[in-house]
């Protein structure tokens, strides 16, 4: 990453701007989308099941948990910090939720709320150690990675695995499918809201005598969204329907994106990530922003862990372990979030996790030796990001 390239934290406002950005090589999410299409073509031609509605539905389900954790990690990466504890926290909070729900017999919703609150509290601890004691976030969360894992083992005790009943509320979360009418209503509402906000924004800008792009552009963009959403609904309906899990994850992505772009808090996140000293001099409470980012990360990790437990209908000693953390960070980075702070959007979690899970899913369908699978996964991962990097490369002066 050459230090001469600084990419804006915000979004095109007009087709003219979009073209300008293309010219200066800032292709936004397009190269990753290109990589995704390449993955789809390759795996689709190697195995006829890859693009089947059933498999795409599975893919949608497989994304949600790690994607949610990745969202939390983006919050911290935006500040130029890191959260290595997200995996352990997700496992620990899933265990807390399960113990409350199964062993103590609490209402599942209450158990979920308590578990997410526990995640937030853990994030608070990380944030305070980072800002007050000024320990590097790497070390704080590394200690968290080890320590919360210990607490998880301690809580699970001898027994190890705890099952969640299949037909319980928590397990049902990942086995609920929207009825067609609801799926279509949602899609239409989304497109309407998006198109409407574009046109309203345009109207207001004209009223304020600010430059605007052509109205047709707003229509094209809303149309694009409509096509994508309609395709997704049609494909998913061909199998079991639109999974609730996907809707939850997508809603989190959209809401957090709106928060980042349209609230003062979001603006300050980018400011602190871009230049913390400048943000401080502008009177922003940098400490609070940093602590909040860690709290968000902890809560989202907890929620992601709960989704994972729901899909597995169980928690065990390896909940939140394995390569979950690395995949969550990788998803954020592949989606275009900078590790140096100040640059990235929540859609990175969506695109990045899609790339990673599509690779994993495709490899599993191909039925290879695990040594070969590792090597191919690495190559495909590298290739997907190389496309992105090469596309950007033309741009640097």
């Amino acid at each position: 990453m050459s230090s001469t390239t600084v990419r804006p934290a915000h979004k095109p406002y007009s087709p003219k701007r979009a073209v300008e950005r293309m010219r200066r090589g800032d292709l936004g999410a397009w190269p990753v989308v290109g990589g995704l299409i390449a993955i789809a073509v390759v795996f689709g031609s190697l195995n006829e099941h890859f693009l089947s509605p059933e498999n795409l539905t599975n893919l949608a389900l497989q994304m949600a948990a790690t994607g949610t954790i990745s969202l939390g990690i983006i919050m911290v990466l935006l500040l130029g910090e890191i959260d290595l504890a997200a995996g352990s926290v997700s496992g620990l909070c899933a265990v807390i939720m399960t113990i409350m729900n199964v062993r103590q017999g609490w209402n599942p919703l209450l158990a979920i709320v308590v578990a997410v609150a526990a995640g937030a509290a853990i994030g608070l601890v990380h944030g305070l150690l980072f800002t007050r004691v000024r320990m590097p976030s790497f070390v704080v969360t590394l200690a968290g990675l080890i320590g919360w894992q210990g607490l998880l083992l301690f809580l699970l005790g001898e027994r190890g695995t705890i099952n969640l009943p299949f037909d319980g509320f928590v397990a049902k979360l990942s086995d609920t499918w929207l009825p067609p009418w609801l799926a279509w209503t949602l899609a239409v509402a989304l497109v309407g809201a998006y198109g409407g906000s574009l046109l309203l924004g345009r109207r207001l800008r004209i009223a304020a005598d600010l430059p605007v792009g052509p109205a047709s552009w707003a229509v094209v963009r809303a149309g694009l969204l409509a096509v994508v959403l309609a395709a997704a609904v049609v494909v998913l309906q061909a199998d079991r329907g639109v999974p609730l899990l996907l809707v939850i994850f997508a809603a989190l992505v959209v809401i957090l994106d709106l928060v980042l772009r349209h609230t003062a808090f979001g603006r300050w996140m980018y400011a602190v990530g871009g230049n913390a000293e400048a943000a401080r001099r502008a009177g922003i409470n940098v400490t609070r922003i940093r602590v909040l980012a860690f709290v968000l990360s902890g809560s989202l990790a907890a929620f992601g862990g709960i989704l994972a437990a729901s899909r597995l209908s169980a928690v065990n000693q390896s909940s939140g372990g394995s390569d979950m953390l690395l995949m969550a960070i990788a998803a954020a980075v592949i989606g275009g979030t900078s590790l140096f702070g100040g640059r990235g959007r929540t859609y990175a979690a969506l695109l990045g996790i899609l790339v990673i899970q599509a690779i994993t899913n495709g490899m599993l369908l191909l039925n290879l030796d695990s040594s070969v699978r590792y090597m191919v996964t690495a190559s495909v991962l590298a290739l997907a990001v190389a496309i992105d990097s090469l596309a950007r490369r033309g741009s640097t002066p």
Partner: protein
Amino acid sequence: STGTTTSTTGQAGTGGENGEKAPTIALFLPESKTTRYESFDRPLFEAKVKSLCPDCRLLYSNADQDAAKQQQQVEAALTQGADVLVLDAVDAAAVAPLVNQAKQKKVPVIAYDRLISGIGYDYFVSFDNVRVGEMQGQALLDALTKNGTAAKGQIVMINGATTDPSSADYKKGAHNVLDGKVKIGREFDTPDWSPDKAQQEMEQAVTALGRDQIVGVLSANDGMAGGAIAAMKRAGYDPTPPITGQDAELAAVQRILTGEQYMTIYLDIRSEAEKSAELAVAVGRGDKPAAATTVNNGTADIPAFLLDPIAVTADKVKDTIVKDGFYKAADICKGETAAACAKAGIS
């Protein structure tokens, strides 16, 4: 778990709806870090299936010790139209929903090696994990008695990863035998079954207990036994006190012959794999073979084929591992093991 036993496992026969077509058999193994799965279970299973049913399609997945990944793998296999699932679960309980999914699709399930709990299904083929731990403990105890050191010192227990459910079984079995008979000076759970970590644990045990206090080591598998042996050799033990293992890794068999390791547990993987392969082909074709026994998994009685683990010490290598063709004598007797081989009568 009262009353749940009624959820029977009787749909086994329905797996062969498409009886004319050769069935698709899906094999799921839990990890690739220990030798056995990739180099024995899988090839042996595949070879047997091919010989019984040349047209059968085989799907194979290895979950790298990740329950969530195994879930994806099972989903992938169902997507590809598997007719039988032979499932070695990463997590005994966590696969229950997958079994449920398979049942809904009327695909029969054979639990392989590890018992699946929380739901009823068709068959279970395995060794007894608790029994493995008991045999390790018993072998160690016998060796100590023979050396006359059982009462004189302490032993060190190096258990597997806490995140691996089977390691709790091994631990339980070993404690069943050892508790009260010998003093356990130090007991460690080893993250990731890592030999490096086992080495460090052993070093620390030697430091903490004193060099001459340690009379034996119970290591849950061969890899960790290797680490413990390296630690003891470096600490000046000659010969090393009796140390147990499991998996019958080639390196461990060689150590057993040269006297560095006392024993290993040889799971006759060939019979396990081949038994499962036979069963899978039969079930895939719509048959419903009768099982010798049943095992209660807390939810239902599962028809089961249970195989006995075999404890292998230096004098038994010839009649078990070599005789079964698990390793060729030439592979074992390379280099410095040659002399030891001759002594054990292996050629």
